């Protein structure tokens, strides 16, 4: 399973070589989530639809939430909430995924991060479906948002988010094998992160002097990016410093993850 001599290129190549296995596992992971339930795959549509409806009822009808930054509240909120949910739930699962699949790892020789990639991909599919619902929601009269060329940017942000997710999954997932407390630490971090990330609040309420502190959170960049693309027609290169910072951080985290994999993966089978 593990290989302490693996180079970074070799590590990445592993995933290309196993693309068929990844596809097969993703398919099976995707299926098991919905198979057997009465509504089956339609849950992919029903879930975000109902979520959106509830938010609309609670915040718009109930609290009479006023548009933020000139945009209806619900689309604005969902642009923050959906990527956050994708990120947090997937990271929580990926942290425990190695331990959970110990039986497979003891039998087959393959890169364990493959399982994480599989989980990211299958979650990504669900996330994309949610976004499509969001887009449809935008089109109905209650909260009209116009389709613009900037929406294409969302592909870039999806990639950025997935990559960040992979990097963090690697670190937390590998450490969790040796240090079971990581699971609990992570859930604390995620709870804190939910409030430290501008999901329910606008970054504009933060004094300019302290904003950079919030920008250290890579999710800030992603959620801002979602809103910029869907709602504000702002290109991703406009805030160049944050973009560079985000990629620098993500790549740095990825290198840490790779380093941990290289050092620790040979010891997995002993620990599991």
């Amino acid at each position: 399973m593990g290989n302490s001599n693996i180079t970074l290129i070799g590590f990445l190549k592993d995933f290309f070589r196993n693309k068929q296995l990844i596809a097969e596992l993703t398919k099976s992971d995707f299926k098991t989530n919905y198979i057997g339930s009465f509504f089956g795959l339609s849950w992919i549509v029903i879930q975000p639809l109902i979520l959106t409806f509830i938010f609309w009822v609670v915040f718009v009808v109930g609290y009479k939430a006023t548009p933020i930054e000139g945009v209806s509240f619900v689309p604005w909120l969902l642009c923050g909430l959906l990527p956050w949910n994708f990120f947090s739930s997937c990271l929580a699962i990926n942290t425990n995924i190695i331990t959970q699949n110990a039986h497979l790892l003891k039998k087959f020789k393959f890169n364990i991060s493959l399982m994480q990639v599989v989980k990211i991909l299958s979650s990504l599919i669900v996330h994309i479906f949610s976004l499509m619902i969001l887009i449809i929601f935008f089109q109905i009269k209650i909260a009209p948002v116009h389709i613009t060329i900037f929406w294409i940017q969302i592909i870039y942000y999806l990639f950025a988010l997935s990559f960040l997710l992979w990097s963090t999954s690697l670190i937390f997932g590998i450490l969790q094998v040796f240090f079971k407390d990581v699971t609990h630490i992570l859930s604390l971090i995620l709870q804190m992160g939910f409030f430290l990330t501008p999901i329910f609040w606008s970054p504009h309420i933060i004094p300019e002097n302290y904003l950079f502190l919030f920008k250290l959170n890579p999710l800030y960049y992603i959620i801002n990016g979602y809103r910029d693309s869907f709602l504000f027609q702002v290109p991703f290169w406009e805030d160049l410093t944050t973009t560079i910072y985000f990629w620098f951080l993500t790549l740095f985290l990825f290198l840490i993850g790779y380093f941990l994999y290289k050092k620790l993966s040979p010891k997995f089978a002993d620990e599991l």
Partner: protein
Amino acid sequence: MLAIKVENLTKIYRLQDISNSKLKDTFKFLRKKHQKDFFALKDVSFDVQKGEVIGIIGVNGSGKSTLLKILTGVLQPTSGNVSINGKVSSIIELGTGFNHELTGIENIYLTGSLFGFSKQELENKIDEIIRFADIGDFVKQPVKIYSSGMVVRLAFAIAANVESDILIIDEALAVGDVKFAFKCINHMNRLVKKGTTILLVTHDTQTVKSFCKRAIWLHEGQIKMDSDTQSVTSQYIRFLFEHELKMESDQPDIDEQLEPYDEHDKTELSEPLDAKTVDSCEFHSKDWFFGKSKDFEVKTDNGLLLIDSHGSEEFHQLFLGSSSPNTLPENFNDFVISPNQEYALIYNIATNIKIRIGVTIYDSSNKLIEFTHNIFSKESNKALIFRTPENAKFFSIWIEFFGKGKILINGVKLLKINEDEKNIFSQKFPEFIYEENNINKALSISDLELILRNYHLIKDGAVDFKALEELKSKSDGIAVNFENTKWHILTDEKFHWKIQNGSLLVNSNLGNDNFQYIWTGGSSWLDSPPDDKSLYTLEPNTTFELNIDGKFQIKTRFWVIIFDEKNQRTDRIFTIEPENRAKEFLLESISSLGYYRLAFEFIGNGSCQLNEIRIRKKIKNE
């Protein structure tokens, strides 16, 4: 061409106190020194040629699984090298790759991908896999509703159809029903023919024996033996017993524990057995019954029966076992005979009057169905040859005589014979005329048997006594009498044995998983030469004839363990299948002077009875 090369492989597991400091241990700079190292594998080296089928045996915890996991690449060795030539696939922990929510077919694709197959390859194979698994329409159902047998079959079908150069199997053949196991074995054989290298890990020596030419015995992480299957498995089994012996050695005396043998065991033993086999049995003076009119005198001398007939006008009779020739012997269980079989009644009777000897045969309802007899006086046949009828069950032997004179009954022996022997035994032999002063010179019944079996000892119509003496000195080997030999055994609740009437009776409920040994030559295990060497000596460079006489309901193996002067050990193993009666084997002794020990090994449920083991020098028949 080498398929696998393993060099100085070592795998250390770190045992530690209960703590959560695994992370710390992982980083060298924080590692504590007081950890205990456990060597799962210690300096293991071996080569596997391409196409070889190797069994790896060892007790639990001997490092078998660790070795396999390193070979499959799942585990990393602590030190040492493993180089593998070709694609490895493994059948370990069947069914672990399955997603139980998915259907059988989907799981074939999933597991196949885990094995590293492309979709295309799997599509080509799927029909064969489904056919092999043979689970019908279940293949379209989710795996969660499968029985455990089905899961295993599907898993095996996938793993077995993975084409690879090296196949590693861990205890996988022990699953499934007989039909499927047979299928698996067939499939394995096909793979072997194709040249697949197979490593079979198990602790079942039987599987290893049937499959592999070579076996590696792992013990406490080290290779204890790496040789041909037969020698490795026998050493391994012996080791297991030795191990057990050591554990039980605090119990005082093996023999003492065996002594109490209650009635319950007795009936259990006698039931499945016909107590006294007639394949070869001798009757002595004490066995005879005499008719009512006792117009003759009987005396015994040196175990011989001497009858002085006064010559009345009627016949007098002697019976074996019963009081009349028309009734069944009272102790009829001692007089059981097999149907449809050639027998020879050998008698050594010297007389100067007319006598008749005969055998009466009864069926199972005790009805007399046949009798056959010989009349002789001065001229005589020394053996009465007859064939038992289809419904023969019991027999009795009688002697009738008439006239005034003397009869010396040396002995009577009933012997099962084969076609070749029949010809020899039906030859005419000179009779031994009774001479009062010559009682001691009379031949013993076994002498007679020797003469009959080697009829070239007859010269000009008379016994060549010189040749006989020579033959006797050479051939009267060692007959192991169970009563006079001390036997040893490891006690097992499921195994009973006792010695009765000179026979060894065994009653076993061991099942087919265990062997039980009974051995001679001291209580020490069979690795060392006999305690009293003088009793167990074999002449060098000689072929011995080994005759085991008994009845076997269970599979029995007879071991002759020969030690040379340097205590180097050689084993000869003779297998006696159930339902066999007497069996002869040839045994060649070693070139130097040797000592031997004997052991019986039993497996299965049932009884067996051992009447005699005779080891004697083989005399070449012209």
